[in-house]
């Protein structure tokens, strides 16, 4: 759309000025919560352990290790396989949710989100219960074992599915029915309609989803640790350097290598974005699927299979959380839910998690949505807008360990006036928002891209201030997506471990961290129990969201219906 914009210089209006100031504020905020902490760790890649500058010596040492190529190859391979499995499934599932008439649609929508509610410990532990040496379905593996490539792929598919689905539902939810009516009238085949109308409309979402899944798999460490066996990946290399050997220099080097996929993702995104046009023009007629037996049965079955797989993993975890001593004593007990017996903080860490997650949802939603809106709708000012976009993309590619350590180096520096938040709940909130910024930003951008710029143009010609258009038109249209982002941040804040594990203090220990500690202490069932409590909490919040969504959609989204 920017290609069509007139090149000539226009005098800056008050709106332009306001928005440019806004872009500056968001850029500074992102620099503080993403850019500078990362920089303060990555710069260690050029120092030796004593902090002396050594140029590229660490990189040369790292690139001359043969194990690196094995890890890099494994990382790329497993990420590619997971992307190729997750994106088609997520697309079909999202398509079913938005374009078919499903019985119990709300149920399918909710179930698909369950994996996102679970700490990554949960699928790992559940898969061991199911397919481990003592597992119920071990024979299904035909003599193979769950530890290794297969285990990583199954757990990652489970874990990544909702991330991709969230983006794809956003992409498919807004469509102009007139295009389909026209195609119908012209006698186009189903296949042709799919490739010429549906897919181009969702293209941006498909590519975003693929990029998100790819980088999630590349940077995730938790699943590889629990179930990866001897399958080395780059993320486990970071762990070895940072946690195993406290070698921050080499950790920074691997962290930098991991940024490469993100840089690539950013370039691809910019390229695709240039070709995306607004779908929801001001004249659009929202598409409402009409019942059609064959299609609806097919998609219902498809959703049922996917949902059953998800529920199997969750169900195993719930059952496992009541088992006395797996696998030798399968009696059931409530004792695993008495967390005071396993962790000094007991249930306190759970309440800390709730406070932290609410904070992250409130602060993060405001920042990501406003940030995405400013980056999309500000006229001109390309350099800073691109900086905001780049910083929004970075966190996705950064392993939590790297971000967490960067936060210590940056926020604990004696000279940093912000060091007052070190050791408080605030730093956990800020860190979590930074860590999960990318998907929020992408969701908001996808939603915003589908709104015709005509809305703004009309508002401007009516001399309505831009902030009022933002509050009265843009935000309400995007409300479903805004709520999605808030829920996404909330549930991720409930489950995040890798970054906050470096930042919590005695008073701010989180439930997700407690679960990892309890698991490390060998009390698998209690760790599973805490994971189940976390899932139940997020599921309850999501259920509230679905209810309010229905209410809000009814009032604010009435225009979507005919």
């Amino acid at each position, binding site marked *: 759309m920017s290609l069509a914009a007139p090149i000539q210089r226009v005098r800056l209006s008050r709106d332009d000025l306001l928005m440019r100031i806004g872009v500056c504020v968001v850029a500074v905020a992102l620099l503080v919560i993403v850019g500078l902490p990362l920089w303060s760790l990555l710069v260690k890649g050029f120092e030796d352990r004593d902090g002396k500058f050594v140029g590229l010596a660490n990189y040369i040492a790292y690139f001359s290790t*043969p194990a690196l190529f094995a890890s890099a190859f494994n990382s790329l391979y497993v990420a590619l396989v997971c992307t190729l499995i997750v994106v088609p499934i997520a697309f079909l599932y999202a398509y079913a949710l938005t374009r078919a008439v499903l019985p119990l649609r709300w149920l399918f929508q909710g179930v698909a989100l369950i994996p996102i509610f679970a700490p990554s410990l949960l699928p790992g532990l559940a898969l061991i219960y199911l397919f481990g040496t003592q597992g119920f379905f071990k024979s299904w593996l035909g003599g193979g074992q769950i530890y290794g490539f297969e285990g990583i792929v199954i757990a990652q598919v489970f874990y990544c599915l909702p991330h991709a689905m969230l983006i794809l539902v956003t992409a498919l939810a807004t469509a102009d029915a007139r295009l389909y009516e026209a195609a119908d009238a012209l006698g186009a085949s189903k296949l042709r309609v799919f490739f010429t109308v549906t897919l181009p409309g969702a293209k941006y979402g498909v590519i975003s989803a693929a990029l998100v899944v790819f980088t999630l798999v590349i940077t995730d460490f938790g699943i590889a640790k629990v179930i990866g066996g001897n399958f080395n990946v780059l993320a486990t290399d970071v762990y*070895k350097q940072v946690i*195993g050997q406290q070698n921050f220099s080499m950790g920074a080097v691997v962290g930098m290598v991991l940024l490469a996929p993100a840089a690539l993702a950013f370039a691809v995104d910019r390229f695709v974005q240039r070709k995306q046009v607004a779908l929801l023009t001001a004249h659009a007629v929202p598409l409402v699927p009409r019942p059609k037996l064959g299609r609806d049965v097919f998609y219902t079955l498809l959703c049922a299979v996917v949902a059953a797989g998800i529920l199997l993993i969750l169900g195993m975890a719930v059952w496992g959380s009541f088992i006395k001593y797996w696998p030798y004593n399968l009696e059931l007990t409530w004792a695993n839910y008495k967390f005071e017996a396993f962790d000094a903080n007991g249930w306190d860490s759970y*309440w800390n998690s709730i406070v932290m997650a609410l904070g992250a949802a409130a602060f993060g939603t405001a920042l990501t949505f406003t940030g995405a809106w400013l980056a999309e709708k500000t006229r001109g000012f390309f350099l800073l807008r691109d900086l905001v976009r780049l910083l929004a993309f970075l966190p996705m590619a950064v392993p939590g360990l790297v971000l967490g350590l960067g936060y210590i180096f940056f926020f604990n520096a004696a000279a940093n006036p912000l060091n007052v938040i070190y050791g408080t709940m605030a730093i956990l909130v800020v860190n979590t928002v930074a860590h999960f910024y990318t998907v929020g930003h992408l969701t908001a951008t996808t939603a915003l891209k589908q709104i015709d710029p005509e809305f703004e143009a009309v508002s401007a010609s009516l001399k309505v201030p831009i902030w009022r258009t933002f509050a009265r038109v843009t935000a309400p249209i995007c409300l479903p997506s805004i709520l999605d982002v808030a829920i996404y941040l909330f549930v991720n804040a409930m489950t995040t471990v890798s970054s906050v594990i470096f930042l919590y203090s005695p008073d701010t220990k989180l439930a997700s961290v407690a679960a990892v500690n309890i698991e*490390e202490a060998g009390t698998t069932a209690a760790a599973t129990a805490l994971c189940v409590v976390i899932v139940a909490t997020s599921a309850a919040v999501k259920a509230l969201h679905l209810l309010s969504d229905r209410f809000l959609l009814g009032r604010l989204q009435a225009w979507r219906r005919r």
Partner: protein
Amino acid sequence: MTFGRLIRRAALAGLAAAAVATPALAQKTKLTVYTALENDQLDPFKKAFEADNPTIEIAWVRDSTGVVAAKLMAEKDNPRADIIWGLAASNVGLMASVGMLEPYTPKGAEALKPSFRSGKSPDTWAGMDAYLSVVCFNTAEAAKGKKAKPASWADLTKPEYKDSIVMPNPASSGTGYLTVAAWLQSMGEEAGWKFMDGLHQNIAQYIHSGSAPCVQAAKGERLIGIGLDTRGASEKTKGAPIELILPKEGLGSELEVTAIVKGTKNLEAAKKLADWAVTRKANELYAKTYPIVALPGIVNLPPNYPADIEKAAVKNDVEWMAKNRDRILAEWTKRYDGKSAPKK
């Protein structure tokens, strides 16, 4: 914030108001203690210390060894910890070598066994207890598969244990490195590597944690786990069908130590804790979970430990471990970690 905590806050505020009226009540010093002790040890340790030192209050920062060590190193330029109580000597030794610790010889440290002292004057750290890297053997699974019970490290290279042993990866776990370093020191480097070549044929997985191997053996995921003794013993207490085996060639041990962090704003209180940590009372507390403690003459074998565990430990040179770490890990990684595909 829980409701309960709110009430506690309110109660505290009330108490504070009362304290103003009674100036005799001195303000408590809050001591930030970094530790990798087990969760269930924290409360008894805190209570016992605070009972003897009512003016000091302990605030724990606890996580696994690697995370706590990484946090301490990352905070080096602006330390947040006052004192370390319960972290591996090899990690703390590294911090001493970069000047992160406040040298201090606790009152009463002379009484400790010599191997539990840092060897510096004044001391940089003081030992508390020792843990060992043992063999955890699942007897239930062994009976199913008719596997013999191993008695030595050499036994573990027998073909009957193919793909049934797990041990910690020395590049990600201190216990793993301790195990490898002990083999190399006790067998000699050449024989040590040769032994590991043989063992590698039977290894199902190099795990990223020192406590996981014995837990996996306890839950029957694997037949044999090489790893932390305390974890093996506690799993057995919980009902796991495992036996802790001390291979006859001897096994590696590691100390847990106390050390004051340089730059602490509560030096006096930190010294009080360092002093208390070497007392007989403290050592008796350590002995509840660890069979080997720093003060001589305390014998109290925790449940499910093999007898004679102290004699089984080989001499382990912490300094040698620190000096040769990069070299050994590079060699280890080259030999065993490059093969990443799971073996069939």
